[in-house]
């Protein structure tokens, strides 16, 4: 497998508070109207950023303190809704290489794995602690260590969870699955041959 081996992600973090951040918010549908994923990084959370600016606030993705961050901190059910891969594609292209959240929506989690964006979970208390730490000290460097199952931050180390197969796929570079699915293709043909609806019943 030729994909990058993803074992440790180190960098500054961006705290994004709120549950149920759906993929329509992460990447509004109008930016799906393209035949490539290029340029999506410019539109991550675009409508939320505009709304924040109108309200005289600064959205974390616009906050100069968090530019260049590579680890996203999020709350519960991150990435709910649409199956658009444009959402994790936009985040990855913006520079996010790992997301630490309380929990993820299933399709977003799977789509992220497919592009080598590591999604790991941590307890609500630990996520809250990391968010506070990063808001106090935006320059703090975090280290997500998939093998150790930890996220290290200055002064604290928290436990992270990731399903074993997801961790293995990322760590061994087996997250690009197509090659794997094409191996031993006679097995696929054998399964198809047994299906009544493909055999005219």
């Amino acid at each position: 497998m030729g994909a990058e081996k993803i074992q440790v992600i180190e960098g500054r973090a961006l705290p994004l508070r709120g549950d149920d951040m759906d993929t329509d918010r992460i990447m509004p549908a109008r930016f799906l109207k393209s035949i490539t994923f290029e340029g999506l990084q410019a539109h991550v959370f675009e409508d939320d950023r505009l709304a924040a600016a109108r309200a005289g606030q600064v959205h974390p993705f616009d906050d100069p303190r968090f530019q260049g961050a590579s680890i996203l901190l999020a709350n519960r059910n991150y990435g709910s809704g649409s199956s658009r891969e444009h959402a994790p594609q936009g985040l990855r292209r913006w520079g996010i290489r790992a997301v630490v959240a309380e929990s993820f929506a299933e399709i977003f989690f799977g789509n992220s794995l497919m592009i080598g964006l590591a999604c790991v979970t941590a307890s609500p208390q630990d996520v809250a602690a990391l968010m506070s730490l990063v808001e106090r000290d935006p320059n703090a460097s975090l280290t997500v260590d998939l093998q150790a199952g930890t996220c290290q931050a200055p002064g604290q180390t928290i436990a992270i969870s990731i399903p074993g197969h997801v961790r293995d796929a990322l760590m061994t570079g087996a997250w690009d699955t197509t090659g794997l699915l094409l191996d031993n293709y006679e097995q696929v043909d054998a399964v198809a041959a047994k299906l009544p609806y493909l055999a005219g019943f």
Partner: protein
Amino acid sequence: MGKTLLQKVWDLHKVRTLPTGQTQLFIGLHLIHEVTTPQAFDALRQRGWKVARPDRTFATVDHIVPTRQRQRPFIDVMAEDMIASLERNTADFGVPLYDIGDDRQGIVHVIGPELGLTQPGMTIACGDSHTSTHGAFGAVAFGIGTSQVRDVLASQCIALEPLKVRRIRVTGQLPRGVYAKDVILTIIQRLGVAGGNGYAYEYAGDAIERMSMDERMTICNMSIEGGARVGYANPDETTFQYMEGRPFAPQGEAFARAKAWWRSIASDRDASYDDEVEIRAAELTPVVTWGVNPGQSIGVKGRVPGASGADAQVSDALAYMGLTAGQPIAGMKIDVAFIGSCTNGRLSDLQEAARIVRGHHVASGVKALVVPGSVAVQKAAEREGLDATFREAGFDWRDAGCSMCLGMNPDKLEGNQVCAASSNRNFKGRQGSPTGRTLLMSPAMVAAAAITGVVTDVRELVDEVPAGVR
């Protein structure tokens, strides 16, 4: 110990356990559309791969197509680019395409069942989260992202983790004016928008068994809004009657053999479930969403929450919606009424809405539109004169597509308009305007709101609201 339908279908389609521990699952039917596939076809070209099973891959256009002025090239250059790309890709790789101008064009989750492509016992994948719709037939249907679309194109397989199964039994009689949409909105409200994470939802119980296929599709469609990637109902006589005579359904003696097999893949009586929930149909009322996710809903007679204290998520949603904590949802003014989508854009949905609309007129200041889910739905409705009913009442009657469900075509909310919508998502900005507001409800409730101009209990509008479930 018996097995669930999910276990049976999973076992039948399992190729092997991958080194990663995931299951390699064969996909019996791959449905594709213009928005989530261009990058997948590009990946195939870059790697020199073919489409493994063009005979099991079917394409249509739905997300970006205009619902009027459909002559080519489209006015929207980017939309034209996307549709041209799908035309090129399907031609190059030998995949059938039901394009603009074809009688089989429509929303991918409407045409699959209509054509008989969707069948019990299949595994189905599509680059759209509402693929769970096809579960209404006892298929196991997954919404996938573009990289997985690439995988399915190249190998007709995907890598997945096994799912748990939660049986949701809907028991008893639904009150009049309460529809399948109200059932699924209630389920999502009770179990939460993340409640189905890791689960397939099996919808069972006598209320589901009495439902038509259209109604079961509405329920399965919104499984993902409750966090469940897969939702299904067991196939039965209603399913078989729907299947019979469809273009891609087995014919003649093969149909009889198919029925026997379809029956055999239903969940066994002694199957065990990872979780069970019961919903009592008699307790349900028409439901309206008040917030910014499909779990934030109340009965039409209810008051929006937030009066008793500060919950940041509730206050944020209320502020976005322009609602005051504790206010009744009935009476909220609407600007737009949208009837359509893969959730509620089928013939029976339009029939029900037309029954409410007949003899009334859209309230002044309200823009109302009906977008049939497919060309077939559109033509069937026109044969019944529903188009005239809607037009006379002041609705726009449009051509088939996803339209204002997600506003990727010219049908968008403007500014912070409030839309009564029969679609599936009320996320911030969902309907094409970053500040637009969506109230999800049944098509009959949308029709009622269109007529009165405010959120209205459909049961009070007309005396003769027929029961939603026959």
